[in-house]
């Protein structure tokens, strides 16, 4: 646990005292590390769930899992990966890095920060307790009513899902409030809002989305809970006037911004890693910043593109189609800005940059299939098929998780004082890239060939699906090796890794101005900030950034 501690402290202190310190801490760095550790544990659990599902689908009519088990697994896999893995990884890394990047001592509300973390952890454990309490929820991660109503899901598994996510959701909202206050109020002298690192700016917008989009989800969950236990009929279509589609509207009003709550911080990490490893300033800081704001706003108005097959009115279908196309524009702008940053640079292909390149390449594919799915008629054909599964894994895994890996390799030296082993990192990258594409590439094809998602089995009379499913399952093995290398790398590097020094990547943002790991108080003296790259100004006094920045 105590990876941020100086070595001597670990040896000299008894375990209970160390544990006590971590459990009671309000330090943003320790909390960030705890978020990351917890998320990694859930990543392994969610990965095992996925592997079991792929095993079941390796060939037709396989009988390894019962239908109910399979349905529980995909529900928990989706829920886990979104709420208990990717979001806490992003929040955890932001927790660690944002105060350092803006030269603050800690988050604005350290106790609220700790409270948020523990709510997340308890919410996650609570949801998982359902496995012990008689079975996990089997309702899918978007829990469409009326399947979630008492009439169709009689046991308490659905209640565990509702309450677990409600608890961890309140924690997330606390995190959002905290990030807004921290970023708006605790910046170092001279760091105007137009001079914050792009990661910080993007976290600010993410926090805005959290604050706006999570409470509606909480409200919807409470309505569902009332339906199940107090006999109300919001979504219980067995009584006249109730509406199954209203749940979908409420859920996706949260669920689509949620996609950007996950994607935006990933964009932020990429916007930090690519400039440093291309040795160039980000191309078009202002347009990346504006594109972020654009995505933030547009993402609140596209939710019903998840509902293109439910039979909305024609004008609504057309509106949501158009709005969804629109969101491709700011996303494209970012893509071009990252490429232009690389253009003319001196690109250093270390592991963080490899993962960033992997992100660009995979996210491009996920983004382009997203354009296909923005077309309502095309969605009618391929939604709820494996094509959609492929699409959102190219976004969430090939995109977001690759970016998280880039960020993790990039900031790990700051968090621990050790650099992750480079050759293991390269192996990790290539295994993950190959395994990922082997798993999810074929799903595009099985979807187009008519295979629906969320089926625990498929039949002998669909031989054309077999080969693609077999490939997908084999890809899981390669991915498992990749993650084994990754965790082995963390272990090896923590034990025997080379010391990082304060600034191993010769980077430009404030977190690299303090020691690795930073002291509890973060900075002895905060350098005065005059530009977006304060350390560049220090390293190149003859050619400082602030001469070229207009805002």
């Amino acid at each position, binding site marked *: 646990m105590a990876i941020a501690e100086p070595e001597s402290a670990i040896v000299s202190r008894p375990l209970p005292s160390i544990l006590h310190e971590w459990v009671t801490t309000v330090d943003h760095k320790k909390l960030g590390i705890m978020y990351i550790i917890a998320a990694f544990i859930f990543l392994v659990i969610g990965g095992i769930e996925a592997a079991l599902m792929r095993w079941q689908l390796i060939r037709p009519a396989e009988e390894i899992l019962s239908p109910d088990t399979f349905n529980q697994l995909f529900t928990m896999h989706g829920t886990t990966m979104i709420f208990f893995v990717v979001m806490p990884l992003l929040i955890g890394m932001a927790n660690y890095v944002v105060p350092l990047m803006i*030269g*603050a*001592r*800690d988050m*604005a*509300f*350290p*106790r*609220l920060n700790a*409270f948020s973390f523990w709510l997340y952890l308890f919410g996650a454990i609570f949801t998982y307790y359902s496995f012990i309490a008689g079975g996990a929820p089997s309702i899918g991660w978007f829990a469409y009513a009326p399947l979630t109503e008492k009439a169709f899901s009689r046991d308490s598994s659905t209640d565990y899902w509702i309450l677990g996510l409600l608890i961890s959701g309140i924690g997330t*909202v*606390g995190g*959002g*409030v*905290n990030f*807004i*206050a*921290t970023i*708006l*109020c*605790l*910046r*170092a*002298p001279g*760091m*105007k*809002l137009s001079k914050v690192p792009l990661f910080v700016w993007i976290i600010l917008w993410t*926090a805005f989305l959290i*604050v*706006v*989009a*999570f*409470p*509606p989800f*909480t*409200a*919807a969950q*409470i*309505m569902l809970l*009332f339906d199940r236990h*107090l*006999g*109300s*009929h*919001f979504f219980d279509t067995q009584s*006249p*006037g*109730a*509406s199954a589609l*209203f749940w979908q509207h*409420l859920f996706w*009003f949260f669920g689509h911004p949620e996609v950007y709550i996950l994607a935006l911080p990933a964009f932020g990490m990429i916007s930090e890693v690519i400039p440093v490893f291309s040795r160039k300033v980000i191309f078009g800081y202002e347009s990346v910043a504006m594109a972020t704001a654009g995505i933030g706003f547009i993402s609140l108005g596209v939710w019903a593109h998840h509902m293109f097959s439910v039979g909305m009115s024609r004008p609504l279908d057309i509106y949501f189609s158009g709005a969804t196309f629109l969101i491709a524009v700011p996303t494209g702008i970012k893509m071009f800005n990252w490429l232009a940053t690389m253009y003319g640079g001196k690109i250093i292909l270390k592991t963080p940059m490899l993962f960033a390149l992997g992100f660009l390449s995979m996210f491009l594919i996920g983004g382009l299939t997203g354009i296909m799915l923005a077309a309502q008629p095309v969605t009618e054909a391929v939604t709820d098929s494996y094509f959609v599964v492929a699409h959102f894994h190219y976004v969430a895994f090939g995109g977001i998780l690759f970016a998280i890996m880039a960020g993790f390799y990039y900031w790990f030296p700051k968090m621990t004082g050790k650099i992750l082993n480079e050759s293991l990192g390269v192996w990790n990258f290539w295994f993950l890239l190959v395994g990922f594409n082997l798993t999810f590439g074929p799903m595009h094809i099985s979807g187009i060939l008519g295979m629906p998602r969320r089926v625990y089995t498929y039949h002998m009379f669909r031989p054309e699906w077999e080969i693609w499913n077999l490939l997908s399952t084999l890809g899981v093995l390669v991915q498992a090796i990749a993650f084994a290398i990754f965790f082995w790398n963390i272990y090896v590097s923590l034990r025997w890794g080379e010391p990082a020094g304060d600034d191993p990547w010769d980077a430009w943002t404030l977190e690299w101005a303090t020691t690795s790991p930073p002291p509890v108080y973060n900075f002895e003296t*905060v350098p005065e900030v005059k530009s977006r790259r304060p350390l560049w100004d220090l390293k190149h006094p003859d050619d400082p950034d602030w001469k070229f920045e207009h805002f």
Partner: protein
Amino acid sequence: MSAEATTHAGHASSLPISHEKVGMISFLVTEAAFFTTLIMSYLYYIGKSKTGPQPADVFEDISVTIISTVLLLSSSITVHLADGAFKKGKHSVFVRFWFLTIALGVAFLVGTAIEWHGLIFEHDLTIATNFFRHDLFHSGRFSRFPRDARRADDEYSLLSGPVATRPARQDGKCGVGFVVLAFC
């Protein structure tokens, strides 16, 4: 970069308001989002109920409702006055207005209890009865739903007052939020 308020880390903040206030405003945004969702639900389901009773059937006499609304809105004014007095150091004035606020809040709760007693025991109207019903109760559980004017007023008075001194009122969720934020 006009007002340079110093924060706990000793850094100059670039906003003229403290991080406590920014946190509180953000928190209120979450509350607004929460209640907007409930209001949207109300609008969505309005008129969908095929069985009675309808609002007109049970709200024949709305005097209790009006009175408790007036009490509730007044409490926003008194808490604002209490806050002002607190800032000026007029302790006794603060205590007077503060207790007045609490009294108004209690009176409102009593009014609500009377109203709900009537709905539940005289009209036999509970959350499970019909649409109009459960939406009303549902929203009423967190705020007095039909009177959304209160929200705006409430938020105004919240912004103007320091977080820690504002008494948590009938709004349970708000109360929890206060405790959490005050704790930090």
